[in-house]
């Protein structure tokens, strides 16, 4: 190891000429087009890397390409400034309206324009919700990502409040292609394993968790309950599927009683063999982490299990998680590319110590996954995914939680804006009406 030898010949990767890259595969990979379209994957000229690479070999502060914008200024964690690239080939805005009623307005505003229209873009990173929202309402920002905590201020049940509508502010809203899920470490001696009593323990915990309340209180209504491991907007999602895991603390208690998790003198349950039972829930030391702690505290109290919170910085959580040293945590995964495989691989046995943070190795699941891997999107693959979802519900390495809404607030003078779930930068597709300030 050390530095990468760019001159080495790699079978299957070939730069045919100045503008052509050829990739040969040994077996079909239906995800390759998605992976290539994914933002972090780009072909970059070798001369750029040679000229601009820093000690880490990265060129992100000097990206050189053929896109519509170039990076002008980058103050880390603070501000990014982009300016239109004069050498860009340009294109004419010519998209068709979809089923969304707002599409018609966008087409009217933008059709026929030569893109990009916006000459300069300033992106600010602001951690505090209050600062962000107040800045938007003051007109200091044109576009803003509205996070859950302050949503009630400007939204009424998913639409803009009357005062925002009066100002002409627009809202671009959809369910993000992501899922949040609570996982239990399947390799942990207390909560993991495939024995019936451990399965019962996990399913009881899953049944005791009030997702609806989390959505109402923690997320301010800006999320939907996740029923299927593949979220909306991703190929393989089934909008009609309903999970068999329901909120039922009484059933949870009955299940635990049945499997011998008896309540001790202090009112807390012990393991069937009489040893003390303590669940360690890991979370981040921020405001959301604290609310997650509170949700689970209520949950565990309702089934009489003692809980302890393990606070770690995010970096440390990742490390412990990848080493399968955490017992339980709430994690989230957003689609890298819009194919269901990106989500189902999270429980594949061979991804332990990588993206399989539940450290789960369920033989039936793995068998189905390997079959699905060889298939393109099809009813057969969907059937396999349904079976796999059932396995998740039955063996409970996860309890599916929510998928959050993405709300983008848009000032009236911004034209043609519609947030895209996978393509994260819309700069080249929008315009700003300069007159209305």
């Amino acid at each position, binding site marked *: 190891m050390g530095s990468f030898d760019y001159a080495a010949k790699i079978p299957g990767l070939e730069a045919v000429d100045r503008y052509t890259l050829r990739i040969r595969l040994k077996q079909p990979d239906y995800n390759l087009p998605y992976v290539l379209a994914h933002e972090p994957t780009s072909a970059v000229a070798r001369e750029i890397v040679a000229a601009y690479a820093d000690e880490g070999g990265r060129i992100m502060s000097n990206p050189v390409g053929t896109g519509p914008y170039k990076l002008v200024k980058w103050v880390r964690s603070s501000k990014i400034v982009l300016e239109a690239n004069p050498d860009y080939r340009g294109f004419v805005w010519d998209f068709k309206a979809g089923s969304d009623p707002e599409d018609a307005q966008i087409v009217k505003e933008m059709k026929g324009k030569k893109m990009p229209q916006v000459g300069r873009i300033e992106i600010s990173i602001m951690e505090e919700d209050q600062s962000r929202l107040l800045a938007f309402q003051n007109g200091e920002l044109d576009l803003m990502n509205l996070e859950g905590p302050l949503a009630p201020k400007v939204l009424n049940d998913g639409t803009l409040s009357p005062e925002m509508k009066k100002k002409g502010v627009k809202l671009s809203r959809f369910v993000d292609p992501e899922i949040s899920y609570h996982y239990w470490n399947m390799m942990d001696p207390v909560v993991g394993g495939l024995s019936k009593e451990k399965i019962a323990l996990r399913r009881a915990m899953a049944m005791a968790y009030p997702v609806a309340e989390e959505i109402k209180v923690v997320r301010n209504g800006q999320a939907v309950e996740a029923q299927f491991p593949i979220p909306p907007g991703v190929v393989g999602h089934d909008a009609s599927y*309903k999970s068999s895991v329901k909120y039922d603390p009484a059933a949870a208690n009955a299940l635990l009683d049945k499997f011998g998790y008896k309540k001790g003198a202090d009112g807390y349950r012990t393991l069937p063999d009489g040893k003390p039972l303590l669940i360690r829930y890991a979370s981040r*030391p921020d405001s959301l982490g604290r609310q997650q702690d509170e949700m689970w505290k209520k949950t565990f109290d309702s089934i009489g299990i003692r809980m302890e919170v393990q606070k770690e910085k995010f970096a440390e959580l990742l490390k412990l998680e990848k080493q399968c040293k955490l017992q339980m945590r709430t994690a989230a995964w957003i689609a890298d590319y819009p194919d269901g495989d990106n989500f189902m691989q999270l429980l594949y046995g061979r991804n332990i110590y990588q993206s399989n943070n539940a450290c789960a190795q369920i033989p*039936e699941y793995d068998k189905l996954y390997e079959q699905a891997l060889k298939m393109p999107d099809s009813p057969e693959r969907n059937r396999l995914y349904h079976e796999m979802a059932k396995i998740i519900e039955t063996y409970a390495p996860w309890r599916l939680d929510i998928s959050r809404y993405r709300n983008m607030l848009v000032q009236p003078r911004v034209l043609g804006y519609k947030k895209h779930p996978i393509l994260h930068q819309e700069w080249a597709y929008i315009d700003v009406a300069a007159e209305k300030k």
Partner: protein
Amino acid sequence: MANEIALKAPARTAREVPHTVSPGLWALAWKRLKSDHVGMVSLAIVVVFILMMIASGTGLIAGDWSKEVGVNYAAPSFIGADIEAGAPAAPAAPAAPAIPATEYKSDVVDPLADVLAELKGEKKPRAASAEPPAAGAGEKSVDPLADVMADIRKDAKDKKAEVAEARLPTLPLGGDKWGRDVLKKTIKGSETSIFVGLAAAAVATFLGTLFGAIAGYYGKWVDDAFNWFYSVFNAIPYLLLILAVAAVLQQKGTLTIILILGLTGWTGTFRLIRGEYLKHKAREYVQAADAIGASNARRMFVHIFPNVSHVVLVQLSIYTVGFIKAEVILSFLGFGVPVDVVSWGSMLNEAQNELILGKWWQLAAAGTAMAILVTAFSLFTDALRDALDPKLKGLAGA
């Protein structure tokens, strides 16, 4: 007393000459303190808070602060119920509420199927419902465990109906986002915050005094060593020190915060006490103690310490105030109290995003309570310092 003796005794001999016992430092200080009105009022307020702390600590009041008795964001009673109160209801399932459930015949065997069936009786599966699942709502026939689940639920209903308590629309000082009573939280929070402040101050004062005494008394290389340690500690930015100590100790509760604040805050006291010990060491009474054979430890703590104890007391006071405020910042940084404990810091942290939503009561309650206590404590500290060391007040002043 002297007069009484004079009245009773017919004559005075040399042995019986009465003399007044001159009051010590503490008696004099107390007298001075009593005449300081602001100081006494502050003391009274502090005492009230401490009594409240004890009452809350023993569970007499605010013991059920964590119960969700109100609706989410319940308004304060003096405002009246807010028609907008409560977080917005969860929106209906998006996109496809009308699509009927598709039947998928599942091959998956549920290992718990027999147990769950046993826990329930016989029950026919109910018709599918399009509502998002809620406790007791209808089940989907897709679910292979539907019968089993329905029966468990039926069992539970037969046992007793667990009535969800009605949630109050208003609370005396309002409710937080979970519907917990802000008044009770404020009381319980004051217990935690004051306790953390006092305990951390005790730790910091103890360390600073101990180190300062040893350094100031022994001098020479001991002093140099302590001074070096002090400079290193002082040179590292306070913020980084706090974060480092917090990371070392790993979040294990309120004790962590006390240790974080105590272990990083001793430097001021160290300087002060070291100076005092340096000063006193050269005094005659210490030399006299040496002459009668008192050991070093005895000289340090039995002879000198009482003469610097008033400085220590004032430091303790100052630290308490400082640490109560610092706890708020620690909460903001994520190193606050754990989830089953409430403090002013955790309340203010929660209240950050509430003001802009128009829910100002938690911010006001915690902020005001803290302001009252800290003001009272600070004014009391001033009065204490003035009482113990009257030179500062000035000959011409009150």
